[in-house]
Each structure stands twice: as C-alpha cells, then as structure tokens.
C-alpha cells in the first residue's frame, strides 16, 4: 500500500464514519417504546462474568417484548460494551440519557461509583452488579438500587453460618474467621462491617488482602494457618479464588479449614478452574444457580431453549442479569399501571413501593422503601458437590 492509497483510505474512512454517525441512532417506536440504557463489559477485565450478565439483561428484554412488552409497550434496550473503562461509561451514559432513557443498567464498581452523582442529578434509577454497601447511603446515592445481597451482608451471613457450623460440629467457644479479599475497593467493601459483626459475637477475625498478579497464595495461606483460621471467607473473582483453593488443597489445609466464597467467586467458572479442589467449598450466592432449579429459572430456561441454548449453559450470572432487569421492569410496570408519566423520578417512587417482589426462589423476596434501597438481607448457602453447586441451607439473614 503506497502512502497515497493510505491517505485516500484514511479520508474515505473519515467520511464514511461521519456519514454513518450522522444517520446513526434512531430505530424503535419513538412514541410507545420504553427506552432502557445499559452498559456491559464484554471485552474488558471482567468480561468473563460480564458477558453472561449482559446476555441475561438482553434475554429478559427480548423475552418480555416477545410476550407483549410492559403494559403493551415494547422495551428498547440501548446498550454497548464499555470494556470497564470509566470514561467510556460516562460517555455512553450521557449519550443514552440524551436519547431519552428513563432507567439505566450499569455493571461494575468503577462505573457505578463514577456515575452515582450524575444519576442523582438526572434522576435516573440505576441498578448494577456492584453490591457495595456504600451504595445504600440514601444521601450520596439516592437513585441506586441494590438487587443482590450486599457484600457486607454476605460476609455477615458467612460468619453467622460459620458460628452455627462450628457449634454443630461439637466445638467449644467461637471459631476463628479470615476474610481474604481482592485488593481493591470492591474487595475491601465488606471488611469493616464483617469485622464489627465478628467482634460483637466474640469471633476472632482478621482480614487479609490478596495481592494481584501473583501465581500462588502460599504466603497468605501460611498467615491464615498461623492465625489459626477455621473458616476462610474469600471475596474476589473466580480465578484468584480457584488458585487459592487449589493451593490450600495441595497443602492439605482444606481438611481442617472450610472455604466460603462470596458471590463473585462462587460461580461455575470457579468450579471449572479449581477442579477437584472446589469440592466442599461453600458459596454465598444471592441468585440461585441453574444447578439448583427453582421456579424463577423456568422462563429464562424456556427462552434460552428456544434459542438453542439452556440456562445451565448460560451460567448463574445470566439469571442475575435476567432478574435485575425483571425488577427494573416491575418498577416501570407500576408507573404505567398507575397511569403516571414514565420518568425516572416516578420509577424510583414506584420501585420504593415494591414489597416482597417474588423472584420465584432465585433470590429471597425483594423489598424497597423510600428510606432503604437494600433489596434483601438474606440468601441461601450452597456447596460444591460433585462438580456443581448444591443448596445446603435455607435462607439465612444477616440481621
């Protein structure tokens, strides 16, 4: 390619891009469709779990539209990949708000934190897969709704279970618990609340950050053993958790110490990566995995089977996205049923009236109020048995 052709090509690309951008947008029935904005991580660092979550949101919208939409109106999902880049998230958010979306589906801690001021100013109800308890502050984040059990509550539930399990095994006193976490705001989020709960109950507790970019966690495991840990709560994503559990298994540590994964490491990916070492690991999972069928899985499964797939192929993060979108749709439906104007403010008010929203057993019932956007405080515990997650408890509450 000569330099001249290169220039011609460049010029042609610029012109084509401009023309296409100019006629971009549009689509959908402007009058009746309900615009929902969303950003997904399909190519970024969290794309392994971000992709099925995004598919879940898209799947719910497609299913709902195929079944007549919300109150007869179709849902138009405007979404794009943002590769976990905060600047991209902001740009896409601004673009979609400009185009008239009334609600917004985010994804990670980065974008949720960065956007919470904007969404409050724009009055756009916002849900994401970040369950940081900091988002429950009604002054700082009045438009954020937490659909999953918060990380703090998950950690407290894990400690509560550890206390019961310890007593049930005939041990005296209280167990020693370690919370090992991803070294980031996401990971540190539950530490303070968990430490306070442990102290109030006389449980010996330490928290231990997991350094990133390492190939083994032998040093961290040694620290845990020195502390005399009986239970280790792991709050990170599945791949480092799998490495840690594998290391622990090879040291024979898993015989005497129970590992409890919180929701971002307790998934199908973790079992795949950790293999045999995953057996017996406990998980605090707010959204029932497909391996434990409940009524709330039926619609998603039937929909996926129509597309030639199935829920067990799609993973539990699909269910997570599906039901997060379902709750948002519930808020929209209430507004439309009341005959109110479809604005972010009205949808927020409608969501705040939701009481005991039934997810068919996928989560414990979700309730919101004007003073609390904490969907639920309880979940079931699961255990890896024979290569898949199996339920081992009824709903345990953090309160």
């Amino acid at each position, binding site marked *: 390619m000569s330099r001249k052709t290169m220039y011609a090509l460049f010029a042609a690309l610029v012109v084509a891009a401009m023309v*296409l951008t100019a006629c971009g947008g549009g689509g959908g029935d402007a009058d009746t469709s309900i615009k929902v904005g969303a950003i997904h991580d399909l190519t970024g660092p969290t794309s392994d779990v971000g992709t099925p979550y995004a598919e879940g949101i898209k799947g719910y919208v497609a299913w709902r539209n195929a079944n007549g939409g919300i109150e007869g109106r179709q849902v138009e999902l405007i979404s*794009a990949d943002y590769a976990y880049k905060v600047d991209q998230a902001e740009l896409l958010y601004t673009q979609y708000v400009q185009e008239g979306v009334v609600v917004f589906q985010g994804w990670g801690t*980065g974008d949720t934190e960065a956007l919470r001021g904007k969404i409050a100013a724009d009055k756009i109800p916002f849900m994401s897969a970040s369950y940081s308890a900091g988002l429950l502050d009604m002054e700082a984040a009045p438009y954020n709704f937490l659909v999953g059990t918060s990380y703090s509550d998950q950690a407290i539930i894990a400690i509560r279970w550890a206390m019961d399990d310890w007593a049930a095994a005939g041990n005296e006193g209280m167990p020693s618990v370690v919370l090992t976490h991803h070294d980031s705001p996401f990971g540190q989020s539950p530490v303070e609340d968990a430490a306070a709960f442990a102290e109030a109950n006389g449980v010996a507790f330490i928290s231990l950050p997991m350094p990133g970019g390492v190939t083994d966690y032998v040093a961290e495991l040694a620290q845990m053993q020195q502390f005399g840990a009986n239970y280790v709560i792991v709050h990170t994503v599945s791949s480092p958790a799998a490495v840690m559990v594998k290391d622990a298994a090879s040291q024979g540590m898993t015989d005497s110490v129970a590992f409890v994964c919180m929701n971002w490491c307790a998934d199908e990916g973790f079992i795949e990566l950790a293999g045999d070492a995953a057996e017996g690991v406990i998980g605090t999972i707010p959204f029932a995995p497909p391996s434990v069928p409940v009524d709330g899985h039926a619609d998603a499964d039937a929909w996926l089977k129509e597309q030639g797939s199935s829920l067990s192929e799609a993973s539990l993060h699909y269910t997570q996205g599906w039901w997060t979108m379902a709750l948002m749709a519930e808020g929209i439906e209430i507004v439309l049923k009341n005959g109110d104007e479809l604005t972010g403010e009205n949808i927020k008010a409608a969501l705040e009236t939701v009481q005991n929203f039934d997810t068919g057993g996928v989560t414990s019932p979700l309730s919101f109020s004007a003073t609390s956007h904490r969907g639920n405080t309880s979940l079931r515990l699961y255990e890896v048995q024979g290569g898949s997650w199996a339920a081992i408890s009824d709903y345990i509450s953090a309160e």
Partner: protein
Amino acid sequence: MNSGIFHSTYKADMGLRHTFHEKLRWVIFGILMLVFPFFADRYYLTLANQIGIATIGAIGLNILVGYTGQISLGQGGFMAVGAYAAAILTINMGMPWWASTIIACLVTAIVGALFGIPSLRLKGLYLAIATLASQEIILWVVTHWDAVTGGVDALVVPAPMLFGINMSTDFNFYWLVWALAGVTALLTANLFRTHFGRAFIAIRDQDIAAEVMGINLFKYKLLSFATSSFFVGMAGALTAHYRSIVTWERFTIDVSVLYLAMIIIGGLGSVRGSFYGAAFMTLLPAILSNVGRALKSSLPIVDSILPFIQQAAFGLVIILFLVFEPEGLNKMWKNIKDYFRLWPFSY
C-alpha cells in the same frame, strides 16, 4: 506561487503563526469553538469536554515524551495525584475549586519530579519500567492510605462554583476546560522558544552532546518531569471537578497507555499533535460504537462482534500509524496542506 516561507524581519521569524492562511484557519477554528456549545447537545458537549481534558493531559505528556524523550508510563498515576489532591483540598480544607486546582498542579509537579529522579540513570525501556512502577505505587497509596484518600470509598467533590455559577455542568465546563487548554497550548508552544525548552529538545536529540554543551541533565530532566506533571495534574484536577466523583479506577495503567497512544498518533513533540491525538482517541470509540449501532439493524451480526472490532481497531490504528506515518496526524495534516499548496506541481 510560494516556493517557501521567507522572513525578512526577526519579529516575523519569531511569530507563532506565519502565513495569512494559518491565521485565517485559527480565526475560523476559534469561531467554531465559540459557536459549538450553543448548538451541541449534552452528548457532544461531554465529548468536547473529554477532548479538552485529554488535550491538556496529552500536551503535558508530550512535553516529557515528545520533547524531552523521556518515556513515561506513569500518566494515570500522575493524573490520580492531581485529581485526589484537588478533591482532598476541596473536601477537607474547604478550598475553592480554582485554588485546589492550582495547588493540585503544583503537588503533581513535585510528585512528578520525585518520580523523575531515576531518569538521570535510566533511559528508554528501563525508564519506562521505572515510571510504570510509579503508576503502581501511586495507585497503591491512593487505595490504601485510608486516612487521607478515603481508601475504599469514592471521594465526592462539591460542585465548583464561580460567581454563583456551577462550573461542572457540561455547558459551563466547556468554557473552563477549553480556556485552560488554550492557555496550556500557548504556554507550551512558547516554552520551546525559551532556553528551557531548547534544553529539553537537546536532551531528547542527544543527551551526551547536550551535557557537553553545558546543559545540566539532572536539572533539566527533573524540570521536564515537573512541567509535564504540572499539566497532567491539571487534567486530573479538572476531571475531579468536572465529574465530581473521584475513584481510583479512572486512573489505571490503561489510561497511561491511552495517553501514550494519543501522542504517538497525534504527533510526538508537537502541541497541535497532542490536540489531534486527544480528539482522535476520544472520538474513535464513540464513532465506532455509533457506526455499529447504525449498522446493527441491517447487519445483526455486527452487534455481537462490534466490541471486538472496537478493541482491534485501537491496536490496528496504532500499528498503521507507526508503519505509515510515524510522525502522526500532525504530519498528515502538513502533508495534506503541502499537497494543495504545491498542486499541481508537487514534487
């Protein structure tokens, strides 16, 4: 027809803009910039503001990398210093936003100079790794120094007010960021007409020769780090005031790489190139995603592969530029101008 630009006075020789056409283009560009915000919607204003901030940051990085030849992968970290300094000063000490911005720039300059110390002994790849370390160290401090940076939680910065006007709205911020970008560009362009700037360039071209000529390498390398970081800190501080929320996830290594890509594509060692690069790298993903949306209805497959095209395009653009026009968009623009100026008798 012109066969070249010849100056008959020293004043003309020293001018920043030489020809009538150059001046005319600047007037047109200026008018466009002044009119733009009155016609643009919020999306385009956000894009413009992002380009403005990126321009300031890219000019800052270009001083260090393009003009002084010191490779830096610490851009994200230095922006974080600026953003956190501005946020902390505003929140904890109740400083007005403009004062916190100025101090944040100075703080970043000091931090930049500090991390520039290894540059005396390290060159090229080794320096790149040293600055990469500064990126990691700064982010580690930001996320772990709870008492000062708030650690886990994002910092919420109060809205910047100027005479009772909220400057963080897209429309108002446009004026602020582009005024500052203009000042930054002017200062930098003039910097390289002083002996400081010429010393920077001499160090880039041949550091040993520069030392022989009496340039104190240590002093000027540190000065270059400080000047560069000053503007990078400004970009960080402006981000803090514009977005009103500061989180560490905005300043990761990705940002350092993105800015390096900006100045490579725009043109190393060129103020205008910094602007072209900032605009290009901000608009590229936006254009790609809009093109994708436009094509989605006619070609459904685009929807599923678009994210990967976006990722690939980023790499492809950099490679193509390195192969065909290593001097970047700035040189391309010059070539285009030359083509028309000399047409039809180009040589």
